[in-house]
């Protein structure tokens, strides 16, 4: 399962106004893992995802998705941005937001039709939000908005999923529902990369982890590298997390 490399990052350096936020990152993400990216605030977790997805241009280094540049592999990748990155007062419905996931495969100018609508409805069903399809997005709770974002990624039917803090501001029920969907994705051979904050749940949710703090601290299977040593290196303070294995 771990022989194919889904994402290969070499010497990636990203800077805002010449101040590096990611410093010489080398990272291989094997196919079929459910990986958490952990690190303190300002560690560059979101930036890492955004530079993989070509949203931010790095000043050095390269990113390959299955051996090719991202631009050639867009259709293999789905993205769930942070919930707070969009204006939820935007005049649109839940269904319409999910449909946006199909825009990439449609390409320029072509409009979504029945096929796209059907796919969007199926994705809504998967996240149990079908009943809310015509609801204006500002009328949804935080957890529901997150499910809509997840559905939008599911509709892309990608091989690799990048999610930026999908558990932020959601209740326990939604968190369980989301992680179950992510685990299902992994079971069907997809690769899932999640920016994650809650260190307690890392061993329970993920099988692979990357420690990041401007530089890459460590990456590998949770059972091998999720320990106090790496946590301390990443977070700077003496970290003690009871890791249940």
């Amino acid at each position, binding site marked *: 399962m771990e022989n194919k490399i889904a994402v290969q990052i070499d010497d990636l350096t990203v800077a805002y106004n010449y101040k590096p936020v990611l410093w010489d990152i080398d990272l291989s993400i094997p196919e079929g893992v459910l990986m958490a990216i952990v690190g303190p605030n300002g560690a560059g977790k979101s930036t890492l995802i955004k530079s993989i997805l070509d949203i931010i241009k790095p000043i050095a280094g390269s990113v390959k998705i299955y051996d090719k540049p991202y631009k050639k592999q867009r259709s293999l990748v789905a993205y769930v941005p942070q919930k707070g990155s969009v204006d939820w007062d935007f005049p649109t419905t839940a269904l319409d937001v999910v449909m*946006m996931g199909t825009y990439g495969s449609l390409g320029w100018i072509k409009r979504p039709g029945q096929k796209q609508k059907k796919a969007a409805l199926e994705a809504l069903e998967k996240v149990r939000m079908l009943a809310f399809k015509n609801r204006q997005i500002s009328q949804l709770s935080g957890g529901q908005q997150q499910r809509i974002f997840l559905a939008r990624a599911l509709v892309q039917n990608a091989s690799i999923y990048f999610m930026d803090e999908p558990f932020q501001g959601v209740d326990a029920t939604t968190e369980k529902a989301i992680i179950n969907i992510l685990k299902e994705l992994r079971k069907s051979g997809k690769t899932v990369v999640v920016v994650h904050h809650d260190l307690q749940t890392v061993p329970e949710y993920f099988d692979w982890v990357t420690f990041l703090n401007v530089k890459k601290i460590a990456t590998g299977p949770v059972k091998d590298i999720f320990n106090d040593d790496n946590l301390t290196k990443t977070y700077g303070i003496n970290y003690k997390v009871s890791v249940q294995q």
Partner: protein
Amino acid sequence: MSSAQIEIQLIASLVAIACAIPGTFLVLRKMALITDAISHSILPGIVIGFFITHDLSSPLLILLAALSGVLTVVLVEFIQKTGLVKEDTAIGLVFPALFSIGVIMIAQNANDVHLDIDAVLLGELAFAPFDRLLISGTDMGPKSLWIIGTILLITIGLLFAFFKELKVSTFDAGLAAALGLSPVVMHYGLMTVASVTTVGAFDAVGAILVIAFMIAPAATAYLLTNDLKKMLLLACVFGVIAAIAGYWLAHRLDTSISGSMTSVLGIIFLTVYLFAPNRGYFSVLYRQRQQRIEVSLLTFLLHLGNHEEDENERHVKHLNEHINWQKVKAKSVLDLALKNNMITIDDSIVSLTEKGQHFTTEAIDYIVTNKNSEIEKMKDRFFLFRG
């Protein structure tokens, strides 16, 4: 109606629609202020274009002016990217600079050219029908009608072609970028359309009042709908209503046409702001009042439920002392509970009915667990749960 009157209203209506379309996206992108900047900073472009062509409606002039509009956006973003100042400051720095260059150029050549700032900024719709387009001697109608008509057709064409791209890059630029639907191209495309429209419309309503036609109809429509397509349509409708009503208001009062149109836009916005069904001022006020009463009702019912055993706690007189409510409030809550058959009053002792009991558990349960399934039914009956 004379043909000149019809022509004026037609020009104004086309301007209104041509402005409402980019305006809707600008409002949703929180970029209303940039139209203000563009409307001023097209001046140097207009002046240079006028020096070259000596014709306010030449395509070259429109192109040059639109270029200086886009230049504004580029400069604002450049200054903003340095991280030294915020966007609003950057806007405030750029457009007066460009505008003043235009003012100086006009002042220096005041003797040679028939171009005054008033005409550019305020426009004069009443004169629009006099400037005719003649093709080999045949009268084809007013020039500004052709200009704004062409701009409008291009705008509508672009809107239909790129609606999906505009929508996704406005709502979620990150996703648009990841999908390969370049939000940067959409951004500058929209800015170009806004600039061209501003230039095309300044002849009719003046560069400054274009701002009103871009922002006010879109802002009004935003209060009324949750659907982007409807918002676009409503913005166009409001724009046209303001254009026509404004014209007749000016006719009636014998005053500035563009001033009247803008005033009508303001009145329409104010009316919708006050009376819109969901987001309007009175509607929000009513909802908040209802929510307050419902919270009180729940508190009251909860109190009754907690003191089932103790009749003293449920005596009508006791209630306002214990829950610390004024008499009036206590009475209105009591009335509401009675009306909904949630309580019975027997010899001044208040008791929960079965319905009241059920409601209390249901509501408390929702507030505690925040489960959605139960509450969807209650949302129809009570404001409390509508967020």
